[in-house]
């Protein structure tokens, strides 16, 4: 089954949505970001593994290992932690940029629900010359609602099998 590209107006609207989302995340405007999510949102990222191409066994990870496996309550907990004022690693404010690219939007079998592929690149400049860059692919489901597009599900795939930053105090 070849996925059907969404109409241009939907494509433009969701691309705008992803850009706006990236700006809100970089600016730590988390309440505004939460307003973009469905109440039943599922936000996940799995720990990558390096396996041989010919290895089809499932002995290894019958249970997937999450970096994120969050519902709305878990996301609220993470954001509540940021707001306590006790997260010393984020003080001073670290410069962070979320760069979104390779956006593709497809219709799904459900009316007003769209499958969105994108790539996210997160740059962080922290103390002195310290600079971190993480990349991930994202596969989202966005619902068109009366109050705009809302994220129902995000599956992000980190590229590194060893995470090269000492914290992930941000979202992808």
């Amino acid at each position, binding site marked *: 089954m070849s996925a059907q590209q969404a109409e241009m107006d939907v494509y433009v609207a969701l691309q705008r949505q992803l850009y706006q989302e990236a700006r809100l995340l970089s600016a730590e405007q988390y309440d505004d970001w939460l307003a973009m999510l469905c109440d039943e949102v599922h936000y996940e990222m799995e*720990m990558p*593994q*390096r396996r041989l191409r010919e290895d089809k066994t499932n*002995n290894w990870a019958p249970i997937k*290992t999450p970096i994120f*496996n969050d519902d709305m309550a878990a996301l609220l907990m993470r954001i509540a*932690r940021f707001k*306590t004022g006790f997260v010393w690693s984020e003080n001073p404010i670290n410069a962070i940029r979320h760069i979104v690219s390779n956006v593709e939007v497809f219709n799904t079998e459900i009316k007003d629900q769209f499958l969105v592929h994108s790539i996210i690149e997160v740059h962080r400049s922290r103390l002195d010359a310290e600079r971190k860059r993480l990349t991930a692919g994202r596969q989202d489901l966005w619902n068109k609602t009366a109050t705009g597009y809302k994220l129902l599900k995000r599956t992000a795939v980190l590229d590194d099998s060893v*995470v090269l930053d*000492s914290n992930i105090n941000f979202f992808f």
Partner: protein
Amino acid sequence: MKKLDDLVDFKTGRQKRVIYSDPAIYEEELEKIFGRCWLFLTHESQIKEPGDFIRTFMGEDEVLVVRQKDDSIKAFLNTCTHRGNRLCKADHGNSRKFVCNYHGWSFGFDGKLNGVPLEKEAYNDQLDKSKFGLIEVAQIASYKGLVFATFDETAPSLEDYLGEMKWYLDIWLDAMPEGTELIGTAMKVELPVNWKLPVENVSGDGYHLGWAHAGAMTVSSSMEVGGLAVGNATADNSGAVSVAGMNGHAVLAALDGQSGYGFYPDPKMAVDYLEENRATVIDRLGEYRGKRMWGSQINMTVFPNLQMLPGLNWFRVYHPKGPGKFEMWTWAMVDKEMSDDLKQMILNNVSRTFGPAGLFDNDDGDNLQAITEQSRGWRTRQMDIYTNMAIGGEHSRDEMPGVVSEGLICEQNQRYVYRRWLEMMQADSWADVPSYNNLQEARATEAK
């Protein structure tokens, strides 16, 4: 290395910062600590079938740990015996053979060299393949599901190496009849930190919890844990212990029987599991461990680089990558008897608290990185830092082995970890390393 004497002072709880930054000291550690100690390789649950393998590290040496046809486990250096290429690049998997990408030498998963391309035409059939099998570790052994190995054939047995720590390890490994398993795969993070700093932190530093993790504790605590308070505003040290002096191994333990699940926002499913099974555990471990310790928040350290927290249920090993860098591998470990729902809840919580995006773990990296960097300057590397809290509070208790101090907020354990570090670094061989397998041995050295 005589000069090491000045680097760590057990009696005053002092360390010279240079031990976190000096490349020469680090090289010495690779030889005298990682080259000699029993190091954790894998949990038996991770390699169940013949040919199942995991690629891991012993110090900076890469090893393949492989389940054999006869169910035994072997560990080989992950390097071709011909020209030294890395044999296997996968994190784990199942393989009948390991073939070198350079010239095609093929090794069975028992380590034997089976195939050499052009053996007849180029080697003139003169190569004795039996002499070029993969190089094994010196000793390999398991303790209740945990597989360890050492490069030193003169090292004491694993049982003797663990010594009295076994009494504490059993609170997790042997509480339930079917034992434990690691679920999922390792969460791996590289940190620009000296490897000793996370070890000392988890071995005994309950002090930092209320301050460094104040944000995480504020949002995730559902019950009191060991008398710790957000912001270090107050502390009740009466219901918990620090235990050390057991061959460098250490334990921090609350004694309430449930606070291990105190950093779960909704621990009901876990607490129900504890109460449903407590009678079984009391039967297996006795009243004290079954009632007071099983289910409590406990930090366990197996010297030099393995740590586990039953309750929070994480299991972690540190692989050094130079004086200022290590890789941290974290798993969720569970009782096999637990329901799939409970296992999934635990895995989610391990990830959410101590994974790469963990609410707690994300507080530690910057502090430990900064200590590493503040040990690198010409002036700072000559300076001292201290683990001198509650010196003189050491005592012993009939109900548990080891040297005991009161409370989770106490720096006794770090002092004993560094004492072991110094003993290993100064010893010419295992014959020179003191054994602390009972209280008399452990406390005799205090007076020195």
